């Protein structure tokens, strides 16, 4: 258990070694491959030890009692300071006798404080919840039943795919870069599932998206790889946008982002209404939050309307497709829903939307898979479709079944992708051929690949007793009996799901038939390998002349993972046999293991009884799948001319499927172009209108300066000049006096002096006159 933090650490070390040192120190391919694989193997061993350790921890009655007490306290906290009469559903008495298994006992290992964000308030949810909180995000790992299950299969499948990749990528330029990225991906994926809070999950979430970008763009010289990687990242970012808002909403309601606190606290909240009334921040805050979270899942797990990136992502190397785009990363959405199921269960509107989206995606992707001609594209649409099933399961409340399907799917789909990789590797001179029409009759040349893929075929088609049967059937059965959404929805969804299961059987069998049966079509060698970079492959596969080339089986390092994965594709289902089928004689291990994680909003788990109906449903879908498999066999092996005729006859339907329901045209042609036009328009606005305003102001300033300078010259300055002119005019008159006659000057001087001396004169004269007057009076 204490090894939890080491589980993601090893791949990180592998990434650092291969990423920083391998190229500089010129590691050999063997060294690089060994380092990468060893790190994952160590990680797997750690996972096993940690989970075993955790198992005894979780079973311990003292632990359980402790956690029950914690949970009760958290529920109390979520209810707010003083909740008047509503009785707290005290977890302890109800199923609190220690020893019951349905007690969540998350083991949290904190490494360091990552983001100390400062003070905060709980601002959403019931008004009484408004209280101070602290945004502190710990770098912490949480081991519990769900993450335990995930780390086990992620490291295990991851290890096998790493081993396969050593053979598959042999001779590629950038071998070290590839394995560095692959290890980085494992680190991110393990962070995603082990993260103890939403933000840690988000780190992994973005991280796997980033690695996906890097690995899809591994052949970055190819235009479509560059396009696909960018598309994947941007579309995923739309999802991340939702996830980001969702997790902030969670904080606003609960005041924490730690799973082990949020999930018990959610139990204090009541189930929100189903319907439009839940789209409000007052009555449906959980609905809005879970919808935002679900947007994240839609992006990451390639659901409608964001599924378009996943088929394009097949531009990456095949092991990448197997690991990232089938087994692990794309199922992160399901993981998140399962992780937050206490929130989702309280938002039935979200559940309904999720079920509808999942079901529609399953159906649409399956129909597209019918006509695709690229082996990896078929598998990609198959993945999209299977992910749809998983969300259908989660949406109808069968979270366990959804997660179980994730696990079985990881085995058989990884196997199918690796098998396809083996076919691509050995099926053409270039080693990069992916068109189904260039394969044929390969079962004679690659028997191991053929046999192992056959196992997975049965698994994905849902044939008893292969793995897919148990997981897919449980989803379908639970859809029919859903208690979350109500009867009519359940029946409708079941019908579509059932139909889709048949379509799945058909297109998967088609893929197998076109690859392994029929004539040796590969001999009709194509003149072009336009979409593959042959140069890279030249040094690996010497150019066989078309006459001498024969498809060949892959080396042991690639065959071994195929065999092991096929083994689990056959047997993994036995871990989760629905108890309705056997009346509990075979325990549903997955169900019991995950039970502590699942909260169904107050509805207690009911004891399961033997249900004959379960057998009827199971056998019906099994029979339906077999029938469709036979139909495909008939179309593609017995009478190969039928498909073309059918395509001709139902041209519209064929085009709908072949052109992916016109989804790419809609998005690339209209949406993306529209956005580009918008950008250009805004840029023109910015350059002309907004900046025009600024330049206009400047123009105004300059113009007014011209006007002002005119005024200055012709009014202000003119006035000055006018004054000068006036002066000159005056001077002209006065000049007349300057005639050079000394007498005149003298006269002026005397007059002037007289004027100047007026005060003195005045005094003098007044004295003089006074004196004269006196004289006169005296006389």
């Amino acid at each position, binding site marked *: 258990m204490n090894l939890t933090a080491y589980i993601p650490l090893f791949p990180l070390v592998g990434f650092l070694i291969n990423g920083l040192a391998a190229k500089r120190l010129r590691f050999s391919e063997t060294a690089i491959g060994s380092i990468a694989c060893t790190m994952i193997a160590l990680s797997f061993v750690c996972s096993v030890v940690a989970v075993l350790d955790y198992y005894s921890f979780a079973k311990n009655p003292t632990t359980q009692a402790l956690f029950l007490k914690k949970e009760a306290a958290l529920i109390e906290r979520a209810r707010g300071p003083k909740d008047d009469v509503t009785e707290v559903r005290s977890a302890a008495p109800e199923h609190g006798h220690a020893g019951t298994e349905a007690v969540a006992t998350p083991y949290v290992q904190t490494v360091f404080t990552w983001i100390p*964000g400062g003070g905060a308030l709980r601002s*959403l949810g019931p008004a009484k919840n408004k209280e101070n909180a602290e945004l502190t995000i710990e770098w912490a790992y949480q081991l519990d039943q769900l993450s335990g299950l995930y780390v086990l299969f992620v490291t295990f499948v991851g290890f096998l795919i790493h081993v396969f990749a050593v053979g598959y990528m042999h001779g590629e330029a950038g071998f070290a870069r590839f394995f560095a990225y692959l290890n980085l991906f494992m680190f991110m994926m393990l962070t995603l599932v082990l993260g103890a809070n939403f933000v840690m999950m988000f780190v992994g979430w973005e991280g796997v998206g980033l690695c996906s970008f890097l690995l899809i763009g591994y052949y970055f010289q190819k235009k479509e790889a*560059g396009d696909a990687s960018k598309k994947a990242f941007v579309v995923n970012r739309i999802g991340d946008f939702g996830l980001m808002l969702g997790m902030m909403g969670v904080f606003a309601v609960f005041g924490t982002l730690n799973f082990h606190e949020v999930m018990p606290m959610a139990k204090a909240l009541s189930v929100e209404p189903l319907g439009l009334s839940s789209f409000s921040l007052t009555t449906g805050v959980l609905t809005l939050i879970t919808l935002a979270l679900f947007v994240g899942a839609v992006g990451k797990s390639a659901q409608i309307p964001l599924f378009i990136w996943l088929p394009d992502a097949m531009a990456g190397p095949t092991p990448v497709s197997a690991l990232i785009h089938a087994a692990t990363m794309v199922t992160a959405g399901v993981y998140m829903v399962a992780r937050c199921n206490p929130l989702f269960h309280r938002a039935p509107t979200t559940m309904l939307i999720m079920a509808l989206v999942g079901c529609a995606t399953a159906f649409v992707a399956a129909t597209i898979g019918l006509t695709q001609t690229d082996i990896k594209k078929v598998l990609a649409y198959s993945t999209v479709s299977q992910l749809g099933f998983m969300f259908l399961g989660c949406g109808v409340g069968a979270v366990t079944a959804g997660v179980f399907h994730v696990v079985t799917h990881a085995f058989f789909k990884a196997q199918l992708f690796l098998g396809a990789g083996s076919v691509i590797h050995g099926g053409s001179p270039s080693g990069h051929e992916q068109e189904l029409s260039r394969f044929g009759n390969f079962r004679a040349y690659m028997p191991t690949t053929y046999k192992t893929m056959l196992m997975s075929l049965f698994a994905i088609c849902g044939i008893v007793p292969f793995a897919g049967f148990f997981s897919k059937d449980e989803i379908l059965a639970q859809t029919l009996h859903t208690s979350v959404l109500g009867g009519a929805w359940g029946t409708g969804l079941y019908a579509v799901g059932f139909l889709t299961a048949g379509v799945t059987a058909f297109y998967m069998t088609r893929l197998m038939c076109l690859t392994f049966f029929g004539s040796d079509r590969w001999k009709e060698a194509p003149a072009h390998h336009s979409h593959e970079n042959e140069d890279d492959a030249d040094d690996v596969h010497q150019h066989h002349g078309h006459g001498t080339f024969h498809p060949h089986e892959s080396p042991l390092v690639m065959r071994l993972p195929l065999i092991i994965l096929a083994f689990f594709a056959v047997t993994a289902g036995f871990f989760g046999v629905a108890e309705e089928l056997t009346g509990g004689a075979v325990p549903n291990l997955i169900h019991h293991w995950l039970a502590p994680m699942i909260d169904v909003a107050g509805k207690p788990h009911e004891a399961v009884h033997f249900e004959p109906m379960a057998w009827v449903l199971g056998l019906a879908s099994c029979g339906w799948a077999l029938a469709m498999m036979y139909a495909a066999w008939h179309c593609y092996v017995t009478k190969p001319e039928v498909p073309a005729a059918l395509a001709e006859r139902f041209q519209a339907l064929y085009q709908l499927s072949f052109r992916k329901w016109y989804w790419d045209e809609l998005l690339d042609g209209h949406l993306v172009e529209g956005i580009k036009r918008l950008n250009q328009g805004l840029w023109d606005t910015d350059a002309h209108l907004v900046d025009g305003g600024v330049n206009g102001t400047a123009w105004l300033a300059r113009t007014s300066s011209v006007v002002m300078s005119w005024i200055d010259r012709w009014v202000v300055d003119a006035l000055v000049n006018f004054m000068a002119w006036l002066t000159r005019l005056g001077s002209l008159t006065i000049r007349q006096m300057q005639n050079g006659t000394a007498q005149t000057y003298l006269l002026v001087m005397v007059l002037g002096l007289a004027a100047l001396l007026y005060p003195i004169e005045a005094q003098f004269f007044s004295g003089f006159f006074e004196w004269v007057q006196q004289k006169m009076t005296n006389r």
Partner: protein
Amino acid sequence: MFPPLLATGIEPAHFDIGNIGLLSLVVWLPLVGALALMFFINKEKTDLIRKFTTGWFALCMVPAILLVIKWKPDVQGLQFIENYEWIPMIGAKYQLGVDGMALVLVLLTALLGVLAALCSWEYITTRTKEYYVFLLLLQTGMLGVFAAADLFLFYVFFEVMLVPMYFLIGIWGGERRLYAAIKFFLYTLVGSVLMLLAILKLYFAAPGVAVAHPKEVADSVALLVGNNSGMLALVQDGIDVARNAGGPSGAAGTFNLFALQALGSARGADGLGFIPLNWQLWMFAGFAIGFMIKVPMFPFHTWLPDAHVEAPTAGSVVLAGVLLKIGTYGFLRFNFPMFPDAAKHPVTLSVLGTLAIIGIVYGSLVAMAQKDMKKLVAYSSVGHMGLCMLSMLALNPNGINGSVLQMLNHGISTGALFLLVGVIYERRHTRQISEFGGLANVVPAYATIFFITTLSSIGVPLLNGFIGEFVGLRGVLEAKVSWAFWGATGIILGAAYMLWLYQRVFFGTVTNPRNEGLSDLTAREWAYLLPLVVLMFWIGIYPKPVMKYIDGPTNTIVKQVSPGYFK
């Protein structure tokens, strides 16, 4: 090595040259370098000039780092306070001091200075000496803005800073350099004139509060300074000057920035400040327009792309890294604490919030349409700074913390992006995106650094951008859910334009023969890129040390604006 810190609260009658405070050293050392360069180095010795300047910038980092070493983490508010008489007639003083927020920005400025000098080595070929003199002068101006604790002093630095930048763009810029330089200068000047009006009004209005409401002002001072006796003396000094306004000293009021904060945020029993709301709004607007131009916020942003495109690399780095931050810093330092009622006013919030959101969405969309790499990065700045503004408008600790972090992060990431664009421009003398393609084949190290910077810019976790974005947006959601929705669209749009840029420049095969012989990063380029990359990872993985500086000032601002936030 350095003289002991000056005692504060005692007012020396004159400026004692022999006893220079550490913060003064940080601020004025670049100027000393500029003078030395001007008078003692021959302008023909270009090699010596650039080595000297780079070395001097590095030397200037020493006191800046000493600030960190001598920092007392449990003291609230300003540290390294200096307080001298300057212009007693008007009450303006030479007062310096930094709190955690300013310290972080001072450090960023000091670091970017070194990088700016280092990245100019090859780029600048004419009038080298003047160039580096201006770069050093600019540095003093910027550091002074963050270190000033006196509004008048702040204003002087704020204006002085424009001049070297004007010449940097106008002399060493691209083709339309004169247009860009004049636009930059005039635009900023218009803003600062409005700000000056607001400053004067505040200067005359504040003393009345000090006289009429001593008790409430004392509370407000206590909230501001906490346990910091040095700061208490500084603020009290300012309050006393205000109280004795019109007295024998002759000053009509105080310019002490924090005394003005205390006076502005003092509240009566009704919970409102003492300056009437309509005056608060006018003054808020005066400051806000000045800073909005600086940030820049839509629709005052159009000087930015022109200035960036025409400026030499170093100019762009400093412009994006530091000058824009002065706008957001100004909001936090002046607008919010001095006019809290105006800041909380619904009209203010909706106007600024809407403009910030327009900045985010519009800036990102316009960035997508750009054909010039540098212009694209410039418009991305509009978007990022929009988010920075939106975060701080949340007016809660998460929002403001996020905003300050975002300032720092934007300085690091966008600074690095401009440096990277400069690297390729020096090789190809073009920045047109269409000229490139497939560069990852030719210059793998450059491609890697560019990629990491791209990720940092679009906010991928474990790199710096994410922390600021997440914390800030979380605060925004607490304040207003719809804002968070719009703010978060930047997550998608940012990824779209940056990755598209990356794809067009680096992916595919080399189609343009002129790109075939490109050389990868040189040692000098590594030297100025690596520190930023290290910072990106550091802040992304372990932001706690940075947060530690920011959190205190942030909480003070929140308490000043909404006293009831922390119950």
